[in-house]
């Protein structure tokens, strides 16, 4: 089971209190994970990536296994540790603004 950690405001928006769990069969790409996340919580559509272009919003970052995946292509495969649930996939609000 893949575990996704959302930032505070998106947890509130999606009305989840802990990690979001996604049941996806390997291999899993970053894009497939985000598709599944939005399918499970439609309210997140448009908040992490653009509705139409699916481009990541500028002040949102993705991390997994201490690696920044934000600038990687969405076809990038997730590490096995994320796919098997040992490590979470982190959606993070970038440090910006006040």
């Amino acid at each position, binding site marked *: 089971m893949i575990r996704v950690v959302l930032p505070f405001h998106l947890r509130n*928006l999606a009305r989840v209190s802990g990690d979001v769990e996604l049941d996806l069969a390997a291999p899993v790409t970053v894009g497939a994970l985000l598709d599944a996340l939005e399918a499970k919580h439609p*309210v997140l559509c448009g908040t992490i990536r653009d509705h139409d272009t699916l481009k990541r919003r500028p002040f949102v970052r993705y991390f997994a296994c201490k690696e920044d995946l934000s600038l990687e292509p969405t076809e990038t495969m997730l590490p096995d540790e994320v796919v098997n649930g040992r490590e979470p996939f982190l959606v993070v609000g970038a440090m910006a603004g006040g």
Partner: protein
Amino acid sequence: MSTIRVLVGTKKGAFILTADGKRKDWQVSGPHFAGWEMYHLKGSAADPNRIYASQSSGWFGQIIQRSDDGGKTWNTPGSSAEELKGPEGMPKGESNKFVYEGVAGTHKWYDGSQHPWEFKRVWHIEPSLTDPDTAYAGVEDAAIFKTADGGKTWKELPGLRKAKGNLWQPGAGGMAVHTILLDPKNEKRIYVAISAGGAFRTDDGGKTWKPITRGLKSPYELPDPDAEVGHCVHRMTLHPSRPDVLFMQKHWDVLRTDNAGDQWNEVSGDLPTDFGFPIDVNFNEPETIYVVPITSDSLHYPPEGKLRVYRSKTGGGEWEPLTKGLPQKDCYVNVLRDAMAVDQLDQCGIYFGTTGGQVYCSANGGNSWNAIVRDLPAVYSVEVQTLR
């Protein structure tokens, strides 16, 4: 007895203030959507329990929220599991999807060059006067969108941007449709105002729009005295009994029109400064209007550190300061364009919020004021519902 519900949008959440018709003892609910910028909340005249809210963030973009129980609970329209059921399926989480029709095109940028249109946020939501599921959204970059399904989906009325949109230019706060006025006597007629695009009117329900700026003078920003668009209109208002009479607070100047915007005349009169943002009309007296003079475009606070609402009982021209209960020294807050509203009681209540987090109420047409709350985040918008 009537109930008054004040909907307050702030920089860090929304608040709902309620009181009975005496407007003395207030209950404060909130923050709703804590930590998010709440540009605007407004209730439907057709169903007061239906409230629309614009929630946004520099990180996570635009969200539309809707309450069907007067602000007790909120949902993003069209995003619940129940609403996504059905053989054809409902739109999946598209209540925050604002996409310009066709090729988005370009508008004028600060340096005079052309700049692509980019959606940023919803500044103002104006619910239909007759249908709770229909509402209009004024957005940045400037455009107007309409929903006919309670906010689940939004579609642009692209005719507005065809009114010389390539010549519109952002003001210091951005380029947004911030004012939407629905004519209660003619459902096909809508007015909008844009900083710094100007004022526009449609007479066919939003298909085509024309600038209504004759009589506006902006000599420093627009050297062309005949410029139809590009004026920095800060706010417009009307009284529902006389929808052809509009009042405007422009960047500089307070103006009125008696023919639906075909000709404007300045009514700044004896105001200490005619720069400001909000303007509103007394519900019981269509010729009584209110503004909050601000020192200048460089100094966004009241002259002399004295927070004064000015009232004209003659539809402009002659103004009187209203100061009782308002700070008369060391006050350096601003009052933003969407942060003033009136109720509909026999003794009209006037309300406004400040960037210092105060929300003031006058239960006697402006003669005296009390702070309902003093320490909210910066107030972006104030709307009032009179519940009978």
